[in-house]
């Protein structure tokens, strides 16, 4: 690959577009990378000079994000989604097939620099998997045929634009609609209603609605907006969290694809209440394919005076929205890490307090809300808080979007009033012989059959929306092991307990998987669980042990099956370690096989 000596030719326009703001570094690097597929050291030099940011800081930042490359990563960069639902649909075999087909090792770039094939955390296509990303664009519904065709396209070096568009088609799969998903929203209607009530009046309605955040924690939205409005600062900001990184969740994807007007209008309502002039939507890198559509929606809203200066003709009501695209880091869904990422830094969670409502983006008061939360505020602005409060459960008003995937006939998006039972959802999606449901993703709760009458609600089983179904064919230990791998891969590495603990946990689960588990390892897992839960810096570490704790409690036989060793066996397996040497030397002496009596193979 030829690298231009003169990097300024493509970098300067990008820098210009971002007004040389070092805080836009992540966006600048993303754009810069689109040029060669990786970030050349001389490009970093140029950025260092122009932005006045030390190169170690740029490299330190870039190396944090899975989708940024400081080394050549192949002209075609293929990443298979590695969520358990993709695996259940056969993704591992398809990945192997592609590697074999292209003569490459997983995770390594082919010698001619053409292609690399690796895995990535859930890409949010669980309802139409197995899925992959190629150069950041989502390809859905993989099967052997499609994989083979993709190999041909890659070998023939066909540009992505020339690939069949069908490959990139993402369907919405809306299976049950209620107030958020029903069509008929008129852009500007919620803003008009809000203006009649005034900022305080709107806040009052949202308070009366009892709306709680849909991103997971369930914080009261009105309290957040009020605290943000009342916080002193030079500027206030609205941030929409569209990072949707929790494996098994894809409802924000559908809201952004179908109801972007409500998302942007909800952000504008928030701006109206808190007095913000600027809003940022943080779109997960996996949803890059939605960017053009979202930009068009923003442009249309500007034309219709629903964004920009003097919104709805009201002097002084100025607000606009910018989209920032993430780059492959689940932790950036945590609101303070998200803000760090918006500021062009490594996505590590901040120390709290202070909280974003007083010290958020650029240290200014910032209201961060989930996509679905913003959509809900539009309907409250239109129909009032009392109406909304009458829907759903006592402490969970309104409706909830569930992303249903896994072993069921009809995966997709289901919108229910809060308080729906797990059993009802299973019936509706056509699940049979279900043994478990993972509600809320890996960080959520594993429910067994005796719990299927429990209710989806903050007061019972809270969820940000993931609902993964496992039937009796599935091995719940392997499900937990997949989740533990996810957390180890996504730990930001800031704090000791999670940085080291999630990897130790992963290794222990692998040890059990390899048949080397003993009761000792079981105790070790429980010990790690406790440390992660109590000493971690943020929610990722706190919840990383949930899938293991839940499955140990509810699916213990799946673990006991693995505790084949009565006495402790080290994870280090001399026999396996000698395998490479045997292959390399072509020698396989019987005497070098070590089978001690205790081990079962």
């Amino acid at each position, binding site marked *: 690959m030829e690298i231009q000596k003169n990097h300024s030719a493509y970098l300067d326009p990008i820098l210009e577009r971002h007004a040389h703001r070092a805080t836009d570094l992540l966006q600048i690097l993303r754009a810069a990378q689109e040029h060669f597929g990786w970030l050349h*050291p001389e490009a970093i*030099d140029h950025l260092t000079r122009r932005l006045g940011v*030390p*190169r*170690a*800081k740029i*490299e*330190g930042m870039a*190396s*944090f*994000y*899975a989708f940024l490359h400081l080394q050549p990563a192949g002209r075609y960069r293929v990443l298979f989604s590695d969520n358990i639902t993709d695996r259940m649909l056969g993704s591992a075999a398809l990945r192997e097939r592609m590697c074999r087909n292209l003569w490459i090792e997983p995770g390594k770039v082919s010698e001619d620099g053409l292609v690399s094939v690796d895995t990535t955390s859930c890409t949010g296509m669980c309802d139409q998997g197995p899925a992959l990303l190629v150069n950041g664009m989502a390809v859905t519904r993989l099967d052997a045929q499609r994989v083979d065709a993709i190999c041909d396209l890659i070998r023939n070096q066909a540009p992505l634009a020339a690939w069949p568009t069908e490959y990139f088609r993402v369907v919405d799969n809306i299976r049950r609609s209620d107030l958020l998903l029903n069509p008929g929203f008129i852009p500007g209607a919620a803003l008009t209603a809000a203006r009649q009530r005034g900022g305080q009046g709107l806040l009052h309605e949202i308070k009366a609605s009892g709306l709680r955040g849909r991103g997971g924690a369930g914080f009261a939205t009105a309290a957040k907006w009020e605290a943000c409005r009342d916080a002193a600062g030079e500027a206030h900001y609205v941030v929409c969290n569209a990072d949707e990184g929790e494996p098994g969740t894809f409802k924000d994807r559908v809201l952004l694809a179908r109801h972007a007007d409500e998302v942007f209008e909800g952000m504008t309502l928030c701006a109206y209440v808190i007095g913000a002039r600027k809003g940022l939507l943080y779109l997960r890198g996996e949803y890059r394919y939605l960017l053009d559509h979202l930009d068009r929606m923003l442009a249309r809203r500007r034309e219709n005076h629903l964004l920009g200066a003097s919104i709805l003709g009201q002097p002084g009501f100025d607000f606009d929205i910018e989209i920032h695209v993430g780059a492959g*880091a689940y932790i950036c869904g945590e609101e303070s890490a998200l803000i760090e990422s918006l500021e062009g830094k*490594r996505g590590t969670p901040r*120390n709290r307090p202070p909280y974003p409502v007083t010290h958020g983006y650029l240290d200014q008061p910032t209201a961060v809300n989930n996509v679905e939360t913003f959509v809900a505020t539009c309907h409250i602005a239109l129909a009032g808080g009392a109406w909304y409060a009458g829907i759903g459960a006592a402490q969970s008003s309104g409706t909830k979007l569930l992303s249903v995937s896994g072993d069921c006939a009809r995966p997709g998006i289901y919108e229910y009033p809060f308080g729906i039972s797990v059993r009802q959802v299973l019936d509706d999606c056509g699940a049979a012989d279900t043994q478990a449901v993972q509600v809320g993703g890996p960080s959520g709760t594993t429910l067994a059959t005796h719990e299927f009458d429990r209710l989806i609600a903050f007061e019972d089983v809270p969820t940000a929306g993931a609902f993964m179904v496992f039937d009796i064919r599935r091995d719940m230990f392997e499900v937990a092991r997949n989740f533990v791998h996810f957390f*180890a*891969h*996504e*730990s*930001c*590495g*800031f*704090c*000791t*307990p999670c*940085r*080291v*603990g*999630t*990897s*130790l946990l992963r*290794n222990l689960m692998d040890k059990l998987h390899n048949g080397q588990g003993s009761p000792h390892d079981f105790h070790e897992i429980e*010990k790690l669980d*406790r*440390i992660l839960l*109590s*000493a*971690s*810096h943020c929610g990722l570490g706190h919840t990383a042990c949930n899938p293991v704790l839940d499955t140990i409690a509810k699916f213990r036989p799946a673990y006991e099956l693995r505790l084949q060793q009565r006495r402790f066996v*080290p*994870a*280090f397996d001399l026999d396996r370690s000698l395998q490479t040497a045997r292959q390399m030397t072509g020698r396989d002496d019987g005497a070098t096989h070590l089978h001690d009596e205790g081990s079962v193979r």
Partner: protein
Amino acid sequence: MSKTFTLDDKRIPFEDGQTILQAALAASVYIPHLCYHPDLEPHGSCKLCTVKVGGRQTAACTLRAAEGMAVESDTGEINAQRLALVQMLFVEGNHFCPSCEQSGDCRLQATAYQLGMLSPHFDHFFPNRPVDASHPDFLLDFNRCILCSLCVRASREVDGKNVFALAGRGLKTHLIVNAPSGKLGDTDFGGADKAAHVCPVGVILPKRRGFAVPIGERTFDKSSIADYVASRHGKRGGEK
């Protein structure tokens, strides 16, 4: 009357804005810590200073003290957890104490002794971390890095140089040096830098100064880290 909070069975006075750890150290009470340095902004990453406040665990180096707070620190439960954290740091890197120049002056080692560590307990990761000997006066042995970012902060906040930065993510997090070559010899790093003197372990070491102080007579050979830290920081005694 100054404000106070309780730390285990002691009353600790504090000034507004002080963290629990700062107030405790000022009162000559030791709370284990590795990523905190009195001259630098708190970071809150090693979690050694974890204490319990109102039933919840939190880092003492970042939480501001408040009147009447009841803080638990020196308990069996919390110390067991701290021990596990130190063990995690040992297995994460490559620490061969007997051959390390920092042995006896190392805060990781001293904290391990303080917490009664007898073995690393967990399986070693044995990462591959090459040494950087490019600088004329300093050696970087990344094998021992515990990612506390003290050098990063010192270089940025005090030296105004940004010689160091953290890179990578998760267990692949590592320290990098600010030069196109990635080598310390190609930076403006110098012995007068604050960053040259804050590393709690044996990563940033002066060259040509092998074993000037014999083993057995080094800082933490002579006193425990608890006594050492308490005597160095303490301005006034904690009141029972």
